[in-house]
């Protein structure tokens, strides 16, 4: 887990960028859209994994910060003309700040109460997105303007793909550094046993709050990325359903490992497309399939598919 030789692996995320540039000219627009969506999901899933998989905090507030990031970036652009490059950091700071506000009381709670409190917070955030119509246009949806990134107009999937790829690559690199850093080890410590961690000198409360804030920042980044390639956003996106989706990615791929998250995102992210060719009425079957996948994997493949690969690798040595 945290013994990745950072050296050569650091190159891998950077490969996203030439890959993206290659795709723009050659691949049909639909695949560009898929690539964009997947990369956004990668950032979202990595964020949840930091909190759930690495720090062991069972928190469901992720969609709230996704929404905060998304709406903030868009609204800063719409109302104040703030360009993406400035708007995104502001949105991240906002999400991080709110994350801290939530984390301060929440970290006192036992893991199960934490799940409930964050679940309530996420539902509350959804209600705000939906009801604060003067700001968010509520259920009618907010039209997302074309963003300008460093002078370039980014509106279509083709235009957004390289930018999204750059952001995704940066986030992956950051996560790799986090994983092997002291903070990363502290996360693992509080996940495995808070009391032992505390006895070993880890500031448990501060570590938990950091996990929350960082995870919220990731979600906000994903929200900002969303504004780049989509033309409108509605509160419907930020529901419990999305958290379950991301959770499935983590469970299927493997909690706590970067390759695991990637495997999960690709499989679950592409699943609707796969199913669409087989099942005519996807919407109806979606919940059943996700529910079944969650139960199946958490029961039979608890360390995720990457966990299986990993144990095979270890045995091969």
């Amino acid at each position, binding site marked *: 887990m945290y013994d990745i030789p950072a050296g050569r692996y650091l190159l891998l995320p950077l490969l996203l960028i030439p890959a993206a540039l290659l795709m723009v000219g050659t691949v049909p627009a639909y695949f560009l859209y898929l690539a964009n969506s997947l990369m956004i999901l990668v950032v979202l899933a990595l964020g949840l994994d930091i909190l*759930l998989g690495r720090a*062991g905090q*069972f928190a469901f507030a992720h969609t709230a910060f996704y929404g905060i990031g998304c709406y903030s970036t868009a609204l800063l652009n719409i109302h104040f003309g703030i360009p993406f490059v400035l708007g995104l950091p502001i949105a991240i700071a906002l999400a991080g700040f709110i994350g801290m506000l939530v984390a301060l*009381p*929440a970290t*006192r*709670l*036992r*893991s*199960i*109460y934490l*799940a*409930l*409190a964050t*679940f*309530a*917070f996420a*539902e*509350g955030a959804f*209600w705000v997105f939906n*009801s604060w119509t003067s700001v968010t246009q509520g259920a009618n949806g907010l039209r997302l303007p074309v963003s300008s990134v460093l002078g370039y107009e980014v509106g279509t999937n083709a235009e957004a793909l390289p930018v999204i790829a750059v952001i995704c690559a940066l986030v992956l690199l950051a996560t790799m550094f986090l994983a092997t850093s002291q903070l990363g080890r502290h996360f693992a410590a509080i*996940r*495995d*046993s808070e*009391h*032992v961690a505390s006895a070993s000198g880890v500031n448990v409360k501060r570590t938990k709050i950091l996990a929350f804030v960082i995870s919220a920042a990731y979600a906000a980044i994903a929200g900002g990325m969303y504004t780049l390639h989509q033309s409108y956003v509605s509160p419907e996106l930020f529901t*419990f359903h999305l958290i*379950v989706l991301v*959770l499935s990615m983590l*469970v299927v791929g493997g909690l706590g490992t970067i390759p695991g998250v990637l495997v999960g995102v690709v499989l679950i992210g592409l699943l609707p497309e796969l199913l669409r060719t087989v099942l005519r009425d996807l919407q*109806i*079957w*979606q*919940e*059943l*399939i*996700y*529910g*079944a*996948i*969650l*139960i199946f994997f*958490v*029961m039979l493949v*608890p*360390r995720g598919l990457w966990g299986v690969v990993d144990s095979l690798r270890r045995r091969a040595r």
Partner: protein
Amino acid sequence: MIWILLPQAIASGIVTGSIYALVAVSLIIIYKSTDVINFAGGEFVMLGAYVGLLALTFLGLPYALAVLTAAAVMWVGGAAFDRLVLQRIGKLDLHHSILVSMVIATVGLSFLAKGLARIFPYTEQVRRLPPAVKGDPIFIGSIVLQWHDLIIVGVTVLLIGMLFWFFGYTALGKALRASSQNPRAASLVGIPVMRMRLVIWGIAAALSGISGVLIGAKLPVTPDMGASIILLAFAAAIIGGFTNLAGAIVGGILLGVMQNLVGIFVSSGAIAVTPFAIIMLVLVFKPQGLFGGTFQQKKV
């Protein structure tokens, strides 16, 4: 002037609150014995409503039998889920948080149940269960109640009473309490703890099933009806500190009444926020709930 509405608000709040209380009790007995928060609690209610509906319309059963059928079917379903899924997870050798995996499993179950209900064209149409007793509304002063409302409160009181008697005075009930307080000690004295879990899940699911049939006459029966109910049940349970049954009942009723009061004095839009606000407020200021006693931190 608004004050005229107060008695009615309180009365109907007590009625809806009873349902929240029942579902909250269901959540609490599962939590107390297995430390698992059942995120599928709302779906148990939904499934119970549908089973009751099917029993009434397709099997033509009388109301009381339909309720019993719903309870029985849900009992089996709940116990089966524990046996086939949760106990299996419990035996896995995971480095950390078997509990997290179990809760994820209940989240999966909630989606599975919702999806299962949604596949059948039968559920596409929004339905309503008939009330237990058809009759004219009852007038008590300025309060108007239906017979069904009284039956809801009556059944709730009856079920809670039965639960208290069961847990307090029967051998099986005491065995259940023992296995939830200290599974290792309980199994040392010969109590089959795993089988006790099945009974707990059965009871919890049956309670939710019955609530489903009852609430189905007041709320529209759709595959999504579980979502709002679970939030309210969580809020009620949290008021009770998630460990105190009596607290949860008070919590449920308080919640039902508060929802109506918010609707009158604030706005109807704010009603939806009440459960979230309560959950956050209680957890921030008094995590042990209003009734839970001193906050206990489980060690290692």
